[in-house]
């Protein structure tokens, strides 16, 4: 399977534009012609197709092609970077000259070169754009629309989007080794507006994976998103003002794992820790979370949105333990930060596209299951909040402060989930909050494949997951003081 992906990548990115091994050698020689520690050339050809259904009609469709190469030369902790949207040799050589200008003197130790057989592919190298006919794509969206409209007469507006992407990449490292990958990615989303007595609320649901579009036909997923979006919106029609202040908070399984992504994930990325700007810097071996917490970043889960057979530097992705029983075990690394910190790369070197520099990024970040039944966890709270769906989050790496915004939450009163409350932002300090996790459920779930992570202006697909868990005290940002 992997050899199939590499064959497709070579065909698309080298043979079609007429680049030979000798040409690649010339480009790499140009990059390496001054004293540099590492260099790479990243080739990419990405196609994306998106469709929007609104007001019951197929309103828009769009097709896009992104193609180019990014060239990087590294000397110590200095990086030179240039890219071109042309795969012609002369343009690649010009970009190589621009990128190598960073290296002026001295060599700091050559970067490790990935050797050995390429890893087994974690997804099939299909082209999802061609995995269903246009008619079938439209029928799929209509199913989701029909499900949402049939779910409740209070549904006023339904917007369904369907996106399929086919991303072919090839990386050549300074040892001349070429790594390739073919990455399918599909995503579907349903957004609804409901209205009752003049009050309007929204709900949305969706999913995705690294596979063909028939993913959404399986298990009636498309209809399921429609039903779920309506359910969420109707819950919010009845929601009261959320409380404000410190409360025990129980987070549901799956997507609420965005907590881990913000509270610890970003803070454990190698670049921040090499520079000493993270609240977790220099804390390997220390207790940074309660003993109940084991947190993993795992890029090796088959077909998952956040998974990668190889990262954007050619390193196989890994199953990396970040925190084990509360003890900080390691950071997520790309090649440059790994070399500068004297550790091995972990397969987390990712970039949005050829026009962006790679850096350490998460893949699928989740917490392992614990001992408690979810009902037991909820039953242990006298007065608190039960939050099951979230929008996005954000973190200040340096101070450790993070937020994430609930868009479906309920009060817990006397150990029971009672009334729905309006969305509210939750805020805390990463290491403090992780130490306040007092119960971990036995119901680990991963999200449905919807996550996108932003860092320094670059977006990459990611996954999150967790079991139900209880945080003894967390600040809830409602209006009911």
């Amino acid at each position, binding site marked *: 399977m992997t050899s199939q992906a590499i064959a497709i990548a070579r065909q698309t990115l080298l043979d079609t534009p007429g680049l030979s091994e000798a040409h690649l050698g010339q480009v790499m020689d140009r990059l390496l012609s001054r004293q540099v520690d590492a260099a790479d050339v990243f080739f990419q050809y990405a196609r994306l197709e998106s469709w929007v259904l609104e007001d019951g009609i197929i309103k828009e469709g769009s097709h896009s092609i992104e193609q180019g190469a990014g060239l990087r030369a590294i000397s110590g902790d200095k990086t030179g970077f240039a890219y071109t949207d042309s795969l012609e040799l002369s343009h690649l050589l010009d970009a190589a000259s621009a990128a190598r200008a960073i290296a002026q003197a001295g060599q700091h130790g050559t970067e490790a070169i990935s050797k050995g057989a390429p890893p087994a592919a974690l997804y099939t190298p299909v082209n999802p754009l061609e995995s269903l006919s246009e008619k079938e794509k439209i029928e799929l969206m209509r199913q989701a629309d029909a499900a949402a409209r049939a779910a409740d007469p209070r549904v006023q507006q339904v917007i369904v989007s369907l996106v399929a992407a086919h991303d072919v990449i090839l990386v050549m490292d300074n040892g001349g080794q070429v790594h390739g990958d073919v990455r399918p990615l599909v995503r579907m989303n349903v957004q609804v507006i409901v209205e009752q007595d003049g009050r309007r609320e929204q709900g949305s649901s969706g999913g995705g994976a690294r596979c063909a579009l028939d993913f959404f036909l399986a298990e009636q997923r498309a209809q399921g998103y429609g039903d779920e979006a309506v359910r969420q919106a109707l819950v919010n029609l009845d929601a009261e003002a959320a409380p404000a202040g410190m409360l025990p908070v129980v987070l549901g399984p799956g997507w609420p794992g965005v907590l881990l992504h913000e509270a610890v994930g970003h803070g454990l990325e190698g670049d921040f820790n090499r*520079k000493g700007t993270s609240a977790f810097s220099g804390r390997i071996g220390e207790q940074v979370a309660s003993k109940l917490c084991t947190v993993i970043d795992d890029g090796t889960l088959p077909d998952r949105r956040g998974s990668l057979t190889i990262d954007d530097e050619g390193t196989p992705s890994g199953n990396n333990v970040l925190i084990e029983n509360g003890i900080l075990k390691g950071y997520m690394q790309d090649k440059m930060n790994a070399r500068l910190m004297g550790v091995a790369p972990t397969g987390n070197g990712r970039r949005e596209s050829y026009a962006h520099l790679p850096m350490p990024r998460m893949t699928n970040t989740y917490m392992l299951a614990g001992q408690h039944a979810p009902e037991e966890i909820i039953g242990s709270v006298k007065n608190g909040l039960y939050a099951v769906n979230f929008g996005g989050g954000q973190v200040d790496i340096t101070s450790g402060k993070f937020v994430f915004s609930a868009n479906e939450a309920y009060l817990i009163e006397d150990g029971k989930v009672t009334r729905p409350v309006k969305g509210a932002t939750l805020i805390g300090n990463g290491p403090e909050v992780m130490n306040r996790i007092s119960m971990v459920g036995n119901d680990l779930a991963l999200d449905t494949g919807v996550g996108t992570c932003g860092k320094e202006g670059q977006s990459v697909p990611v996954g999150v997951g967790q079991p139900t868990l209880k945080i003894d005290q967390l600040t809830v940002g409602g209006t009911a003081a």
Partner: protein
Amino acid sequence: MTDNEQIDHLKQVVADLLQEAKAQGAEAAEAGVSSQTGLSVTVRLGETETIEHTSDNGLGVTVYFGQRKGSANTTDLRPAAIRESVAAACRIARHTSADPAAGLADAGLMAEEVPDLDLFHPWDVDVDQAAEIARACEDAARGLDPRITNSEGATLYTQCSSFIYGNSHGFTGGYPTSRHSLSCAVIAQGGEEMQRDYWYDSARLAGELDDPAAIGREAAQRALARLNSQRLGTRECPVLFRADVAPSLMRSLFGALRGHAVYRKSTFLLDRIGTQVFPDWVTISEDPLLPRGQASAPFDNEGVATRYRELVSDGVLQGYLLDSYAARKLGMQSTASAGGVRNARISSSGQSFDALLREMDQGVVITELMGHGTNLVTGDYSRGAAGFWVEGGEIQYPIEEITVAGNLGDMYRQLVAVGADDAIPGSVKTGSWLFDRLTIGGD
């Protein structure tokens, strides 16, 4: 290529796209083409850390067959890519539905002339000079105080872009623009506590950028001011959004006024034209024709001529932000808003920042907002925040890990004051916003 040759080249690509669309059977079409080059140099801890040469091309085409449409875009401007993109758009249009609101903007609204808004001032700065400027900026930050112990660096970024938009009404327009920015982020340390903050400036003309050392010092002062941050008890109290975070409240307003949110009935400002949405001393305007303005544009993304307008006059909502699609859905006319609001400004009630602190007497100043807790359907607002505690009209100490919550519709109506302290970078001009009572979540 010279700048003129570049523009002529892009014009030819647009003409070719429109011609190809016609040849492939489209009854109407529109196309945009852009080309950008830039240089970004980052200096960290005194050393050049990253040199990035940017260079982006983009082409987008939308075709209409009756009222069915399809779009395509690519980074490749060569003739083969033009044919393929048009073919892809046409293929898509065979499967979309007839939509009565779809189509080009009305021919009568096209910009008849394209005034020169003085947006193009390339900066002939080489890598070494750029590094010197960034270094001067970071040095000023690091040298300000020994508690500035670490840095994320200072970055100088300069870019030049050209774009052309054309459609089958016969409209073609475009022009080159430049943008330059300098930013700096540093870390202040006190004991175990680390606090990061940043500052920046951006301008069309390099000479209009703030002094690099002043930007660096401001970044350092902001980080230092956060040291010894405390928490605060949960309460309702007056809240002042400092001028550098107040633009986010303006952007939420623009989000709620977007035509697409209005026809979807997914905005808390639905059906509010002609009603009081702010106090009567508030006027909010956009001025797309501002010379050298950071968001200036003589026509919108559909070729519609832009002009000065008031969105809110004396507190009364005057209109929405409509592109041609939303306008048709609502039975209204385009407000040249395809692509967003351009150079927005809110009137001030006249107070300085210090006068606003005195007027507030006791409460919270917000200097940072975090997260995405803004619901434009309901107006419900809940964000993470940091800032300062104020008593006796003076700043007492920094606070962090709080939330600020309310409802935007109520907040806009009950806005107490907008300061005259609007000297902030960016295309949204506002002073600080004072509210009488919002909920602060904390301990």
